[in-house]
């Protein structure tokens, strides 16, 4: 029973990751391997803010913003008048500069957990669109395969940057609510209830966003038919940027939820991300409900295998992808695989 509770809690976090992966893939065809890294960075940022240190993510954000600005200037160099280019560059760089200044100013003051959450979110969320602008927007027409290799490259770079900016030490944040109660034979911690509750709330609001708002529908439309989306005037680059923004926002939520439960290191993100990824694959990178169910399943499988064969739990989780991939690919085998 305890294992089940553990599994569901972990599964809820994997579900968030998986949903972000599905969202990004559907809109941009990018398999966002660095999503887990964003989660780890979120957790480490929060941990740094709690102790009043300046989080390394400030420098990471500034670096990404600088790269994005340079790319924006290069891309429009021959197309637009210099005035417009300068304006665009300013638009690209300004948010990062403002946020960085605010964090540098406020972080040492230790203004409490709410302010910390806000600062963490405003550091991590813009990384999504900056990442899209630098790594993926220039490759928008490339095949899924090329985008995947680029995503792996982005992950590699971000892992290294994580080490550079956060160091090799692991951190754990204090839980948002510190309480526990017993329910029959079971001890339920408030944090795990919070995890499940927050996940449900986020999934619900995503569902509403996609079904009720025009922007949400436009994102779905970009996913269903890219050319159709362009033909009704949806700018696909901005849709991609928005999808990355949402993924980064989901990463912040995941980070807030997972950081008190496990010690995070600069490279923990990848393993967490891959488990979300297993779930996303089971859901075929498309169906949200199936993905969420699969994520819970992965969480439970992990909890049980870490109990029975703890040394091999990762082996079991990753081995479980192969038959699923096989099933998926057999089902879609008749889409021509040629480039």
């Amino acid at each position, binding site marked *: 029973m305890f294992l089940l509770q553990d599994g569901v809690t972990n599964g809820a976090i994997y579900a968030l990751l998986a949903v972000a992966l599905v969202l990004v893939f559907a809109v941009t065809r990018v398999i966002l391997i660095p999503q887990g890294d964003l989660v780890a960075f979120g957790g480490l940022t929060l941990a740094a803010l709690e102790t009043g240190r300046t989080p390394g993510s400030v420098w990471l954000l500034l670096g990404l913003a600088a790269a994005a600005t340079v790319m924006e200037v290069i891309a429009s160099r021959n197309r637009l008048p210099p005035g417009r280019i300068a304006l665009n560059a300013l638009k690209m760089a300004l948010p990062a500069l403002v946020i960085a200044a605010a964090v540098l100013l406020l972080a040492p003051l230790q203004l409490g957990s709410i302010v910390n959450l806000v600062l963490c979110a405003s550091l991590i969320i813009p990384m999504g669109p900056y990442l899209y602008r*630098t790594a993926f927007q*220039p490759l928008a027409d490339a095949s899924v395969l090329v985008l995947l290799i680029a995503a792996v490259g982005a992950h590699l770079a971000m892992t290294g940057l994580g080490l550079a900016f956060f160091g090799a030490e692991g951190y754990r944040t204090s839980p948002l609510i510190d309480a526990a109660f017993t329910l029959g034979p079971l001890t339920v911690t408030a944090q795990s209830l919070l995890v499940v509750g927050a996940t449900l709330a986020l999934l619900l609001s995503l569902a509403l966003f996609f079904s009720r708002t025009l922007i949400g529908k436009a994102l779905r439309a970009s996913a269903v038919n890219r050319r159709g989306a362009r033909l009704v005037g949806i700018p696909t680059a901005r849709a991609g940027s928005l999808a990355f923004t949402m993924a980064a926002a989901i990463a912040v939520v995941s980070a807030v939820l997972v950081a008190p439960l496990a010690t995070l290191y600069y490279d923990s993100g990848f393993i967490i991300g891959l488990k979300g990824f297993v779930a996303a694959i089971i859901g075929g990178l498309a169906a949200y409900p199936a993905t969420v169910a699969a994520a819970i399943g992965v969480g439970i499988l992990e909890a049980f295998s870490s109990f029975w064969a703890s040394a091999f739990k990762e082996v079991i989780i990753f081995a479980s992808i192969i038959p699923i991939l096989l099933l998926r690919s057999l089902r879609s085998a008749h889409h021509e695989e040629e480039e």
Partner: protein
Amino acid sequence: MPTSDLKRLAIFAAVVLALPLLPFVPSFWITLFVFIGIASLVALGLVLLTGVGGMTSFGQAAFVGFGAYTTAVLTTSFGWSPWLTLPVSLATTGVAALAIGLVTVRLSGHYLPLGTIAWGMCFYYLFGNLQVIGAHDGISGIPPLHFIDQPLTGARAIYVVVWIAVLLSIAGTLNLLNSRVGRGIRALRSGATAAESSGVNVWRAKLLVFVYAALLAGLAGWLYAHFQRATTPGAFNLNIGIEYLLMAVIGGAGHVYGAILGAAIVVLAKNVLQDAMPMIFGFAGNYEIIVFGVLLILLLQVSRDGFWPAIAGRFSRLSGVAAPIDTTYRLAKGDMTLSPDLLLAVKGATKRFGGLVAVNDVSFKVPRGHIVGLIGPNGAGKSTTFNLVTGVLGVSEGEIHFAGERIDGLTPRQIAARRIARTFQHVKLAPGMSVLENVAIGAHKRGRAGMLAGILKLDRAEERRIFAEAAFQIERVGLQAEMHRKAGELALGQQRLAEIARALCLDPVLLLLDEPAAGLRHMEKQALAALIRRLRYEGMSVLLVEHDMDFVMQLTDEIVVLDFGTKIAEGAPAEIRRNEAVIEAYLGTAA
């Protein structure tokens, strides 16, 4: 291997093997070169797998691990001699690759690289958790290689072994790529459907490359274990696997020497960065991955072909002019007269896609030695009908008979084996291969030589005949001047002619041509029409989809007209031209 390749390899070998003899080269450099050599082997496999075969793998490091751990266990726990473990290391890697490949190469599109990430992680954790192989600590105290009685301990000693292995692997790989099996592999990326229709077993070709690449990685692992004298799981994790892929991408996936260039750049950069980066950040760590990650993304954005092609362009004077090919001794021709008079019979063929009926109860016949035209407006179901006859699609209802045998339900490969050849509406040639090589793929089923024969060059007699056949067919379609050019450089009309030559290399009894005249100039059309008539004279039958009505009307014996997937008319060209239903189908009703 063509002479230009041989010359290039000889120069490369001389430079590489002379290097350690030079006294002023510091030992540290030699050590780096050993690492480059070992990495080159893995990258070479990846070039074949990813660049040539189109299968991206992030998991090659795991195969290096198989090679390294096998010899580590056998030499330390069982006291085997290192040389004896080489075949066992390769066998272990090969068996593992075969098992993984059986599952993995079936994966399509992006699922395949995802699968390699999954098993790459799996084996890393397995290596790190199995007590028998030392878990996280790995195995140390591996004995060095011996040459006669001399232990090869220093970098200078093992350098020679490593680079001989690299040179042999390059030679073998080049031979393989230029063999019958290799041409099948090279067609995987851009012409799998066409290769399958020429009788190439695409799935088997994929598995072969997969195992071949893994064996090179296993060999690298074996060398690594005896050079480092220790193995730890960290050397075989996913990040290292990504580095190997980066090497292949830098070199330019698809270029054999690019693998060595890529390995050199990555190994050297890693060395420099490992010294420089911690100084920037103030503490130790593997920061080189930042640069590698960024480099990978930038390469994809700026130059997806890697660096090698740019460098190789400077050496182009090395590649000689291809010798003319003697077409006297070709492949043996099959019998054209055996088949009964009624060659192809399509009986009530129906194809549904979901609710849409693309082909509806269509029946027609192609008698032996006839040219039958299949015409109709856009979306009438002509290409679908072609795909039904050639097994690319299965019929929903109805039957297709060929030479008295029922062939619906057979795969394209089985249909090719019955000597039915085809061309494609959207040309499917491997653009990077020469016209001659593309056409030679058509003769795949008429050769026997296997992978090993290709690597060891035991296939020369057969290769000569295959190329003589290919050159002969190229002359027939009038492309002899373009024979040695890359297929991708030809104009569309010429590419269509090359497809016809490839189809003829199959020695077909029935030839299916999908819009062969599109993009041809008037004179070329006349020449093509003359060729098709000559083929009919030789006993071949032809089924032809074409939009150029002059071409169809002057060439065919009968015409079948489709509209909305249904046959609306059938008869001699003159009748069809007067048929009101046909005119209406083409011009529309004046509603």
